[in-house]
């Protein structure tokens, strides 16, 4: 049994390929069924997000299965095989495990450390589980991936620093003001970036929004979205008196907030601090505003610069995360090794039980006068002898396989003439293992 990963992501394929291959959420289930109907695929999970389409599957014949999945991905979306092939990657075994752990921990994301990917992987797993796509191996694999992701998030600071312009603005605002919820935000203009920043502030708890715009109806429509109050642009000076955080995002060719306006506003606000977020190009706020006491002005380049620096800090944390991932991959490997030895253990036990049972029958036939009580005692005796005899070798078998030693299991099979090659009855004992290891 081997774990196989076939897929594309934002590094290997341009968006026009990714969007053709992407699978709408509603169709993932049906797609999965088709995948599982491929002859060599035994378990499968399909992950489809805007940056990646990946199939994690389990097969007896990994090479055949990977070829089949590659062909499948191209066919059903109507992409000719040779057009898709250069973008597809295939990983097997430990490397496939490591890839999944990295993806779940957001080490492979376009924005390093972004938190959404884990939720998307969880969804993909849930869909596969409900469609019967996962059994022992993928169940365990995905649970371990979620565990790894959690460790990375709590033990490194990979998600700690803001890496977008909007979230950087919110982080800075929270270093100027204590309670963002009590602050008033003034949105000047109708830029997309400005609204995104306002959205982030809304998420951080801000409730009081005011919107100033040259076109009053635009102001009204933006204000409605944020539950705010609209105002015409010529009332800007009055609006400044009320605003703690000003998001400037107009298309005006000249600054619309001058140093004098800011100074006057600060004076009548009794110097309560003002935070100007100027995301407009050309700039809306005179740079001199930053030299006023209690006024803090950031333009788009300042914010971008900080985001970039934070991203570099995340990259430094990513190195630590990779080490954690390797640890988790190793742990998963150890678990798999115990899984491989399981069929031997089961067979060994059933062989012994069988002998005990037939000998018990013979013994009971020779003493027909034995009552219920005596029968029970004899049964227990036979069962206990088997259990006690098998306990040390089984413990040793498990231990050796955890350490990667497969010779002991092989020797055991030879010694006790366990004829089958170990695959027989595997699904049965896998479900046993799953029960004991379930989350």
């Amino acid at each position, binding site marked *: 049994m081997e774990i196989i990963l076939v897929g594309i992501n934002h590094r290997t394929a341009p968006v026009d390929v990714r969007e053709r291959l992407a699978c709408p959420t509603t169709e993932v289930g049906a797609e999965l069924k088709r995948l599982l109907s491929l002859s060599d695929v035994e378990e499968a999970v399909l992950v489809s997000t805007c940056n990646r389409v990946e199939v994690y599957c389990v097969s007896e014949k990994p090479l055949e299965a990977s070829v089949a999945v590659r062909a499948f991905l191209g066919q059903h979306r109507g992409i000719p095989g040779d057009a898709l092939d250069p973008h597809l990657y295939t990983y097997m075994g430990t490397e496939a495990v490591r890839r999944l752990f990295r993806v779940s921990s957001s080490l492979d994301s376009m924005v390093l450390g972004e938190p959404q990917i884990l939720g998307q992987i969880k969804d993909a797993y849930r869909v596969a589980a409900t469609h019967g796509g996962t059994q022992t191996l993928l169940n365990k694999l995905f649970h371990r991936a979620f565990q790894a992701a959690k460790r990375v998030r709590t033990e490194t600071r990979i998600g700690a620093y803001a890496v977008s312009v909007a979230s950087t603005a919110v982080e*800075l605002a*929270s*270093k*100027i*003001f*204590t309670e963002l919820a009590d602050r008033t935000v003034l949105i000047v203009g109708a830029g997309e970036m400005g609204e995104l920043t306002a959205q982030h502030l809304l998420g951080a708890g801000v409730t009081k929004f005011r919107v100033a715009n040259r076109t009053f109806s635009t102001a009204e429509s933006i204000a409605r979205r944020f539950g705010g109050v609209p105002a015409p642009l010529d009332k800007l000076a009055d609006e400044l008196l009320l605003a703690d955080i000003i998001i400037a995002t107009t298309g005006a060719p000249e600054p619309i907030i001058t140093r004098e306006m800011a100074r006057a506003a600060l*004076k009548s606000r*009794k*110097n*309560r*601090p003002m935070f100007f977020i100027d995301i407009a190009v050309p700039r809306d706020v005179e740079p001199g505003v*930053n030299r006023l*006491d*209690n006024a*803090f002005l*950031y333009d788009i380049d*300042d914010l971008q*610069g*900080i985001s970039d620096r934070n991203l570099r800090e995340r990259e430094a944390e990513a190195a630590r995360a990779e080490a954690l991932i390797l640890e988790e991959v190793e742990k998963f490997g150890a678990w798999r090794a115990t899984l491989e030895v399981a069929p031997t253990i089961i067979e060994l036990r059933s062989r012994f039980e069988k002998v005990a049972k037939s000998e018990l029958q013979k013994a009971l036939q020779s003493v027909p006068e034995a009552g219920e009580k005596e029968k029970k005692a004899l049964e227990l005796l036979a069962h206990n002898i088997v259990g006690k005899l098998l306990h040390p070798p089984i413990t040793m078998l498990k231990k050796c396989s955890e350490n990667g030693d497969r010779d002991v299991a092989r020797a055991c099979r030879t010694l006790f003439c366990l004829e089958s090659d170990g695959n027989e009855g595997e699904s049965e004992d896998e479900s046993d293992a799953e029960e004991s290891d379930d989350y």
Partner: protein
Amino acid sequence: MSHTFIMTVLVPYVATTALYLYYFSAQSRSAEKAGLALLAVGFTAHTALLIGSYITLGRFPVIDLKESLCFFSWSLVALYLIVRLRTPSGALGVFVGPLATGFFIAACSITSPDRAPDARFMTALFPVHILFAFLGHAAFAFAGGSSIMYLLQERGLKEHRPGPFLRRLPSLQQLDAMNYHSLTVGFFMLSLGIFTGALWLHNVEGRFLKWDPKVLASVVTWLLYAVIMHTRLIVGWRGRRTAILSIIGFCCVLLTFLGMGLIKPGFHNFL
């Protein structure tokens, strides 16, 4: 003060300082909590130490420089523990911890001169005067500390280069509020301290004023803080300007506290 007794205060204080510095550099909340717990332990021992001295000496133990430094260290910790109970941030502890420990070590390293028992220091008003004056000074230390943090934070934000302090220090608004509360409490305490000091002097010597350098410096300090309060409350200054004034004010306090006593030994020569 027995050697062992001093160690029961000194060891927790030094450990607290180390934990607070670690908390600040590694941003570890648990280090801050452990530091706070140790500070409380040290403070309890410190209080016991002062009560012990009171009993053996038969007077309030704040007569000479050694005793004053020891008591100022106690005032700083007492005020910090009160403030910390009311605010979730331990940032001020990074400033107060080393300061209080430093004063305590200074107190331990000098010896008290022999002094004949003086009836003037046995009156009930004397400890009241001392307590108000010292807590006032401690509050001004807090105002100074939060102002230093404010200036660091403000510079980072103004220069658009958020350095290592940005994430470690509280928000500007919070630091400004700390400064405001410290100034208010300090000013109130110092006023009461001067008032009760005058009353005490009247009781023991029959006059309200005695012009020694310490009294003069205290009045100047009081006037300076009166001006700071005025600019803050009436003129509407806040933030950077108030922070700078608060730091200047605290320098005056240190000068009054240590400097004046050293220049001319009057009856305040101990302070």
